[in-house]
């Protein structure tokens, strides 16, 4: 008995500590919804929001946060304990509470900060970082006004500035091109030596060939074109402008299935050549400026969807 005199039981102490901590957490949760969310998530009472694919957030907002904010509010640095590298973090807020009030643009601290004049010390992104464009700000505003939803589809939010399409630059596979070129490489080399400068590959990524006989002018005739016979299947562009090539070569042109573009400016070619070209399925454009070619011959090509430049009836 004397042992307990003047002291409260240990369980009461424990109860007090639990009570105070609980009150503290509850109070903080009541005052800070963001904190409440993280507590609920911690205890598994609420699932952390996950952005849905093709959501407005993922397609429009996340790339902006990533490009303009995440270097200070992301995985590596968390200034003001704020992270913007996922929708869950963004909605949770930072040291000073939530920065996004779903549906309430006016009271969203994030919105306030990104619309301050750049001269303001509290403007975000701070001076020296890539600023958000007016369009970017509009995108973020629309998202918050629409409820800052992680799931709402991009198509559900109207009036958003147009999404800029990124260009996919082809990747260079020189090895694949080399393999494709290998079979005819000896012919290419032989003819390049015989006709320096006239023959080039379309690109370093391709085995397609371009023959620019116009550089030789009148010196290039039907016999010369015939010399390129082994390469006919590979020719994608052929320029016979100002050359001496005539209708006698029509048969040769019919044997160039990959041709996409043919130039016959001031050439001696006539209707027979044009008729031969009509059998080529890949032909896209033809130039006949200054060459004697009938409208009838051209109209057939035109009906195949070939773009024709030059005199003819195009004028």
């Amino acid at each position, binding site marked *: 008995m004397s042992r307990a005199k003047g002291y409260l039981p240990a369980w009461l102490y424990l109860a007090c500590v639990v009570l105070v901590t609980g009150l503290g957490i509850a109070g903080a949760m009541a005052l800070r919804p963001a904190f409440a969310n993280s507590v609920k998530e911690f205890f598994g009472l609420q699932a952390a929001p996950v952005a849905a694919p093709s959501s407005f957030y993922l397609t429009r907002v996340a790339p902006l946060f990533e490009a303009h904010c995440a270097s200070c509010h992301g995985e590596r640095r968390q200034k003001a304990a704020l992270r913007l590298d996922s929708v869950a973090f963004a909605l949770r807020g930072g040291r000073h509470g939530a920065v996004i009030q779903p549906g309430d643009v006016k009271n969203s601290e994030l919105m306030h900060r990104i619309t301050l004049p750049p*001269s303001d010390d509290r403007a975000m992104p701070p001076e020296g970082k890539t600023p958000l*464009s*007016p*369009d970017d700000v509009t995108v973020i505003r629309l998202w918050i006004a629409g409820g800052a939803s992680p799931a709402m589809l991009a198509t559900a939010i109207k009036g958003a*500035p147009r999404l*800029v*399409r*990124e*260009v996919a*630059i*082809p990747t*260079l596979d*020189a*090895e694949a091109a080399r393999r494709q070129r290998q079979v005819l490489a000896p012919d290419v080399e032989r003819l390049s030596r015989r006709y*320096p*400068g006239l023959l*080039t*590959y*379309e*690109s*370093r*990524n*391709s085995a*397609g060939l371009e023959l*620019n006989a*116009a*550089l030789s002018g009148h010196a290039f005739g039907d016999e010369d074109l015939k010399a390129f016979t082994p390469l006919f299947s590979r020719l994608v562009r052929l320029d016979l*402008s100002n050359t001496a090539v005539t209708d006698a070569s029509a048969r040769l042109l019919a044997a160039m299935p990959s041709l996409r*573009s043919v*130039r016959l*400016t001031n050439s001696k070619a006539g209707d027979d050549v044009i008729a031969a070209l009509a059998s080529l399925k890949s032909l896209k*454009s*033809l*130039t006949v*400026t200054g060459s004697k070619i009938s409208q009838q011959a051209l109209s057939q090509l035109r009906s195949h969807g070939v*773009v024709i*430049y*030059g*005199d003819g009836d*195009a*004028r």
Partner: protein
Amino acid sequence: MAMSDMHSPFVERCKLEADNRRQFLSWGMGGLGAFFLNAAMAAPAPKPGASALQIKRDPSTPLTPLPPPFAPKARRVIYLHMGGSPSQLDLFDYKPELIKYNGRDCPDALLKGKRFAFITGIPKLMGTLFPFHQTGKSGAWMSDRLPHLEKHIDDLCIIKSMRTDQFNHAPAQLLMQTGDARVGHASLGSWVSYGLGTQNQNLPGFIVMISSTSTVANAGKPLWGSGFLPSVYQGVQCRAAGEPVLYLDNPKGVSRAQRRQVLDAVDEINRDTYRQFGNPETVARIAQYEMAYRMQMEASDAMDISREPKQVLARYGAEPGKTSFANNCLVARRLAERGVRFIQLYHWGWDSHGTPVDQGVNVGLADNCRATDQATAALLADLKSSGLLEDTLVVWGGEFGRTPMQENRGGQEMKYIGRDHHPQAFSIWLAGGGIKGGMSHGATDDLGYEVVRDPVEVRDLHASMLYLLGFDYRSFSYPYQGLDQKLTGVKPARIVSDILA
């Protein structure tokens, strides 16, 4: 005895005398070369994939045509640089709101923290001096100053949201032409020449022509210099009147055969020098002499517009024997037909400050429109009818824009009407190879002061041009001073996808 002979003072002296200064230097250079070669060979192997993109060139044939990395949309470029910078607000960027506020004080918010070349104090807003109207299928707005160009409006892509960070002519021009505001970087044409070589071995791959014999562009020859690239890739300046290139013709009494003999002798000396010193610039020089020899025939023919029919000369407004933008446009077409990759025209005179009367927006701008409009349109028409426009990229533009405020140099009201330099927003147009015609890209605010939609930085324009020519701007580089130098510099650039066909 043999040993003692070799070490006799007499033999030593003979050997020392034979070692002249030049030989000493050449050994020294060889030693240094070997040292660097050693260091280069010890360097770690390049990243896989990187080597495939590197351009390998034999210094003795530096202009051999090379295919671009991927299939190009444009095979050649005609760049019409409008030196001094035309006023976008009086040609393409129609701002009815600005007209409403004509003559009012410019709001403080627009002036705060901004620097101008000449404007001080509070300038007055100034709307356009010329009537605007909508034209073409696209309904683009244009002023009445370019009636000939207007016929091609549906082939043009007007970028109204160009931005630069330079507000003085020379650095701004350098930025437009070399990707950097400082001297020493390779010009657009040099990059193209380096990457593609020249198709026509009798003509340079990169030719420059200037509208006037007296005024050249502010930044001068570095605008078409090769910078850190080998000098053989620099632009060759040609003249519309007289010999196309100075001293291209043989002097009186010297025949072509004699010229050949001289060249053979000089080449031999140069080859000897190369064997001794191994400097690739020596081989480049041999190649340049040979090119000049071949050019004697071809260049004179290409530049001779007197061979053109009368009606063609009339359409351009060209007069053989004169130096003019019109003549240069006609020559540009002839060069494009002959396989020249990059044709750069400079036309100075758009610097409409309003200081002298011929630099007023009301007079000077109108004069320059008249001097260039007809020939630009004729060039586009010819390229179109000959099918060349399909794979020729035409670019028109200055180095920055002009202010929506009237210039008030020294805070005073000025006698003639002018606009100051304005880097925040300007308009350029593109046409041809791979470009979507009949469209405008980007927009400025109601006063034409800042870009509010789809800004295009100079590096974005360059990245887009390289893309159209079949290059990836991120990997098209040249090692110099420890950096893989790129046309687009070190800041992130993007290809302007909206303007691509």
